[in-house]
């Protein structure tokens, strides 16, 4: 009995301790996850994307209006690229300012650092990414009736472009609402020469009016190169006849191409009603004349 009493007391103390522990967890500062990534679009200026989110249960919730600073190579005022504030998606994008061209050109690899401001809800968070400059080139080869896409990935080392082997690359055809993989695989890996060759078998794809479409290749969140993107227009598609909707008389055409039946109907009604109104105006004139004659 004494043992049972002791056990009950122990249980009560443990329950109390657990309750305090849960409360303490609730009151702890929320944790913000900040990430910075590098993006090199085809023929455009590279940019950095900062994302801020919070894990709530099993979901990641984007954090809006998180303020921070992005630096290049070191966290110093002279290396400050730009101040950021995240949008409703918890994102902020910055382009590398032209003032940093000398710094950018000086090395083949750079470190980008983001530091967020501490606030009432979150402590200051720092995140960084180390990026080596890379480029992707797309080439096409037509041999023995077979079309091949050659994708070459190069990285900058000591001011020279060197082949980058063992890099995972995605290769696809750009369509209106997304990308269509060029072959059976989604992802290809470059060889020692930094190249990957894919046989192209999608012969009957519709292209534009001249049969063109765009082949794209990119690295996705690569730990060394980030997100590097390339594209090449090829004339392998089936040419599409342009559909000129505006030249046909229809309800959705321009005003001058209204359907004849609609024009007939509308102008008959308008003519009928306004013809009657004109007749009535003439009657008013007639009444005026009759009044003057009576004088």
């Amino acid at each position, binding site marked *: 009995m004494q043992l049972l009493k002791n056990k009950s007391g122990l249980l009560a103390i443990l329950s109390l301790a657990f309750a305090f522990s849960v409360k303490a967890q609730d009151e702890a500062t929320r944790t913000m996850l900040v990430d910075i990534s590098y993006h090199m679009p085809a023929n455009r200026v590279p940019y950095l994307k900062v994302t801020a989110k919070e894990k709530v249960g099993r979901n990641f919730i984007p954090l809006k209006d998180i303020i921070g600073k992005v630096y290049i190579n070191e966290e110093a005022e002279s290396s400050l690229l730009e101040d950021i504030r995240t949008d*409703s998606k918890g994102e902020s994008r910055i382009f590398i300012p032209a003032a940093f061209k000398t710094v950018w050109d000086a090395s083949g690899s750079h470190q980008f650092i983001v530091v967020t401001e501490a606030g009432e809800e979150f402590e200051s968070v720092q995140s960084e990414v180390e990026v080596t400059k890379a480029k992707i080139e797309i080439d096409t080869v037509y041999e023995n009736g077979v079309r091949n896409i050659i994708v070459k990935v190069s990285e900058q080392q000591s001011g020279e472009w060197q082949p980058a082997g063992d890099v995972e690359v995605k290769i696809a055809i750009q369509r209106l609402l997304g990308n269509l993989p060029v072959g059976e695989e989604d992802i290809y890996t470059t060889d020692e020469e930094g190249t990957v060759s894919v046989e192209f078998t999608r012969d009957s794809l519709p292209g534009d009016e001249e049969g063109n479409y765009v082949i794209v290749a990119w690295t996705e969140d690569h730990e060394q190169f980030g997100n590097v993107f390339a594209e090449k227009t090829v004339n392998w598609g089936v040419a599409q006849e342009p559909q000129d909707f505006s030249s046909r008389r229809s*309800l*959705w*055409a*321009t*005003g001058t191409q*209204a*359907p004849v039946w*609609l*024009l007939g109907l*509308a102008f008959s009604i*308008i003519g009928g*009603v*306004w013809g*009657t*109104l004109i*007749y*009535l105006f003439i*009657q*008013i004139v*007639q*009444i*005026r004349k*009759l*009044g*003057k004659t*009576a*004088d």
Partner: protein
Amino acid sequence: MIWTGILILFCLIGLFAYYRQLRYGLVVTHMGDYASWGIYISNFVFFVAISLVGSLVTAIFRLGNIHWSTPLTRIAEIIAVSAILFASFIIVVDMGRPERLVNLFIYGRIQSPIMWDVIVISTYLVISLLLLYLPLLPDLKILNDQKEKGRGWWSRIYVLFGGFWKSNARQERINQKAVLILSILIIPVAFCIHTVTSWLFATTYRPGWDSTNFGAYFVSGAFLVGAGAVVIAMYVFRKVYHLERYITETHFDKMGKVLVLLALIYLYFNVNEYLVPAFKMKKTEEVHLVTLFAGDFAPMFWFSLLAGLIIPAVIMLFKQGRKPLPMFILGIMVVVGAWFKRYLIVTPTLLHPFLPMEDSPERFKHYFPSWEEWAIAIGSLAGVLLIITFFVRIFPIIPIQETIAEQDATPEK
């Protein structure tokens, strides 16, 4: 004078707000990418609706040989004319750049309901003006005959508009024929005007507007609000100008019965409009309906339905409810409820598009009019009342000649 002064003040504030809108652009309003039609278009639909009463009282009752409504015809017509005039103004206000109105005529598409609306509104305005003017001609002669009794400079207006009226047989015959033609002509045009206005909404694929019921729903609602407005005007003119001999309790009683009929018809279309989508509960319709029934717009929705439709109809079923004062109060409830009803037709649907609202500022997801919008809307309402006020101060609001002829033709009971 106080009444006129207040109306002019509201109009001036509205004009100042419109100046600000012209000066700074539509940015002074709280409309955005989603709620691109706000209080202006609600007001436009309200004015178009209220103007339909001209065709009901002047034409439908006239052609149906309903003689008791004769003293009310001019009230109905001046309401129709002033309301349709301001419906035209408010649509230009909504455009933001009024000088671009001319593009509608240069590049207009006959396939577009907006083009039909422009055509039918201008036609309805002309017909309503003629229906106001032609029956006024015999009364202008009576007023001209009174000018020696000190009618002031207004007599010049009477001479200008009706100096040629000699009441000879040929003139009267032409006039009666013209009024008859107009009475026939205005009915299809009136149905067109509000059906086309409803098609501005119904021809777009959106929850709350995607309905084949919309034309009839709008027309029935328009007759109700127009009749409500006539009842208010009847009570005010009767009190202010001591017209108890001409606008009698019988008129209120009969207008009450008309209002009950119109309210029941409109209620029937409301049931159709909400029950059928609520039964199917397609996802987008569900979001829209829940917002109306239990969401942000629920107080306004239930007010417009209960206070603007069901409660007035129930009260007017009883004889005591059709007395002048209760009718006046119920008329106000119907008109105010109808205004909110138009707001509910326009705004909630715009805030629930099919595609998710992404990459847009938070303020675009809600809509409440800015002070400029309120000022312009209230100014336009004041403008309608101002036209009516000026009209009744210059011209007789009861058709003198027609009412005398009517009373002579009706045997004394």
